[in-house]
């Protein structure tokens, strides 16, 4: 693997299972960031809890490894407090679509300039094999003993319909495509979602590497990323699963932080600002 500025201490004890899809993704992410020439001290990865959410532990960069489900509001606030930072929110399907489901809706409505990486393995890994919001119907688990009853959540359709300006699906088995999408997403000025198919070797015996290889295909080069309705329609294709940038809004939608009055005339991060006694005296008028 290529050496990057984002490599962590080589002696780090990595908590993932051998063969986990997170390993190739870690390499892909670091390479993408290196190729974008981002300074590790200007990058923040906000994550929650789960195997995917451990990712920043293994990347040499700033991170906020907070609570299960809450990486997105944290990321939104970090970007709002200092828009100069590059901010990534990262976690798994349970973390982002289950526990953090409400934030998923509202982060899209706000449209902060953050990249949202969701490792989607269609199962709970850290808690050992229960169904996730994206598990297919009928999947048997130690809890869903007769098979999953609920309809699987379709994150791409939800994102496009709520108004996300950048919506993509990647697969850790297609490194080249995944790296390119991550680079596009990080550079995109606005909220960018990448749902990343990422096999769980321990708990999802159905959706394996081989299964994903056989049940995915790349969107053709001729795909019109600017056509929202066609993109939405495309998200309903379940087998095989399309990979690529489904939708990228052609015109630029202003980001959340760009629209905050605090940055209307002064672009400096909040921490550099002061408030004078004269300003405060006005509060006593």
């Amino acid at each position, binding site marked *: 693997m290529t050496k990057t500025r984002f490599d962590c201490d080589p002696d*780090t004890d990595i*908590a993932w299972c051998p063969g986990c899809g997170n390993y190739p993704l870690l390499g892909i992410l670091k390479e993408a960031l290196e190729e974008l020439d981002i300074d*590790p*001290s*200007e*990058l*923040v990865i*906000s994550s929650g*809890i789960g195997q995917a959410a*451990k990712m*920043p*532990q293994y990347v*040499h*960069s*700033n*991170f*906020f*490894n*907070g*609570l299960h*489900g*809450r990486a997105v*509001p*944290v*990321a*939104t*606030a*970090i*970007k*709002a*407090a*200092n828009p*100069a*930072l590059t901010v990534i929110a990262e976690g798994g399907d349970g973390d982002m679509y289950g526990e953090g489901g*409400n*934030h998923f*809706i*509202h982060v899209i409505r706000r449209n902060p300039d953050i990249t949202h990486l969701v490792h989607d393995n269609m199962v709970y890994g850290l808690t050992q094999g229960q169904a996730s919001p994206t598990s297919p119907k009928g999947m048997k688990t130690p809890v869903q003993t007769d098979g999953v009853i609920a309809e699987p959540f379709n994150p791409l359709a939800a994102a496009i319909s709520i108004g996300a300006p950048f919506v993509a699906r990647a697969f850790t088995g297609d490194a080249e495509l995944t790296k390119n999408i991550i680079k596009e997403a990080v550079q995109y000025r606005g909220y960018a979602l990448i749902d990343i198919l990422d096999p769980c070797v321990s708990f999802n015996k159905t959706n394996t590497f081989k299964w994903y290889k056989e049940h995915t295909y790349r969107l053709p080069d001729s795909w019109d990323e600017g056509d929202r309705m066609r993109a939405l329609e495309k998200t309903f294709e379940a087998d095989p699963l399309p990979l690529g940038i489904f939708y990228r809004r052609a015109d630029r939608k202003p980001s959340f932080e760009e629209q*905050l*009055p*605090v940055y209307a005339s*002064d672009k400096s*991060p*909040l*921490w550099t*600002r*002061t*408030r004078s*006694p004269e*300003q*405060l*005296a006005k*509060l*006593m*008028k």
Partner: protein
Amino acid sequence: MKSYSVVLSGEAGQGLKTIETLFMKLLRQSGYYAFMTKELMSRVRGGNNTTELRISSEPVYAFTERTDLLIVLGKNGIRRLEKRLSSDTIVTGEAEHLSDTGVPCRKIPLPVEKSLEDIGGTLYANTLVSGLLCALFSCNPETAYNLISTQFAKKGADIVKNNITAFDRGMKLADTIPLHAEIKKDESVEARSKALSGTESVGIGALAGGCNFIASYPMSPGTGVLAFMASHADEYGVVAEQAEDELAALNMELGAWYAGARAMVTTSGGGFALMTEALSLAGCIESPAVIHLAERPGPATGLPTRTEQGDLNLAVYAGHGDFPRVIYAPGTLQDGIELARRAFDTADEFQVPVILLTDQYFLDSEGVIPKVDFSGNSILQHITETTADYKRYALTKSGISPRGIPGYGNGIVRVDSDEHTEEGLITEDADVRIAMTDKRMRKLKNLKDVEPELIGSRDYETLVVGWGSTYGAIREALERLGRKDIAFAHFRQVYPVPKGAKALLARAKRKILVENNVTGQFGNLLKQETLTDFDVRMLKYNGMQFSVEELVNKIGEAVKL
């Protein structure tokens, strides 16, 4: 101290607020001190709301039962207030609204509708009442005209004119009311003072503490602070965001502090309950946090628009695991400003969550206080520039590690909700776990306590203990009792229990606890921390604040025992 108590009673949506705003401004501009408290029903229109305005020559901070003048604007306005009427009380309002009481009082019909017939009727009733009050308390009508013109300017010249006419007619009707206010006015009051609500005091204090980020989910009675910050966002450079839920709100706050902002949330008990996981996160990642917790009676939705001091236990014990925290509870509007400001300093210096514990009574009260001088105010940012070898959780003697933020310096800032190493990386090493726990728990060793204020004689036999918003009522009750052997200890820092508490309690022969909750939560905390118990507990939990008279009677009885 001479004071008058005017009570307004009306339905929600009838415009009590207009009278309150106008009259409070008039009073201050005319040289009076005033204090206003409200009791609302949980509805947007209808029901029956009451507002008490106390007019005085000195600062007043308390609610009294005594009613000198009751103005009834709607039906059934008297019945709910019967206990507060006496043969001295003047009750006025439309004749038809005065009949529903058998309690003897001096009823004076006020021809509101008839007086306003030609200009549009009862729509202007509130302005007419303002005129009536203006004349009764000899305020300057010119001031009122200016205020009316400003307030209704947007609605057009006709509306302004009608309001002024209604105001004048109200002034004329004052001759029919036999209330002769004899309160000394001091015209210098206006220049020296500021009229504000408890809500505004918290907002002003937060701005003085450097707050530049607030994320919150609306919940009464905490919402006002979010609205205050939003209305000052442009001028003071504040990010004010309505979060999708309380989970998002406090997590946003922590993200903002991490990136160098000075952030807060405002909420009430139910919302705070949802924030408790993030509170624990603040403890683990050693993030500063300021949380305004505005109490209302629980459990669950309880009495959403009333008051109680029922969430102290929640504030003290919320969050899984052990971590340090500080809780302040303002008793006066000055306290609101000072403690909100201080909350930011304490949170930042010690890297702990600080909870500002208020309640509906405190927030919705309005009063006149001496102006606060901010000329020496400095916002101390405890942020360090990082170097390549920076460790967010460096073990130090004080337990406090220099706080870096991303993008300032060339170091890396890692914060982790798992137990972590000095570098902020996940660990399961037992020795590191012990070292980190001990580090966190020693952080408050150098905290300068806000010691309780002792009011009254130092040689007390009886000590009355209260905290937060009961300040005004207890203080005034003891003044009225006038006994040299009773003192009042008012706690503004309720957690950690200040170091001086034990000695104060030990000196008393008799200890009386006054709390606005059913179990005496603070009394129990003091007992646990100081091993001293109370002889008498005066607990109120009907959703209302203590009145001065109630405490005069109860404390008077207790000291006879």
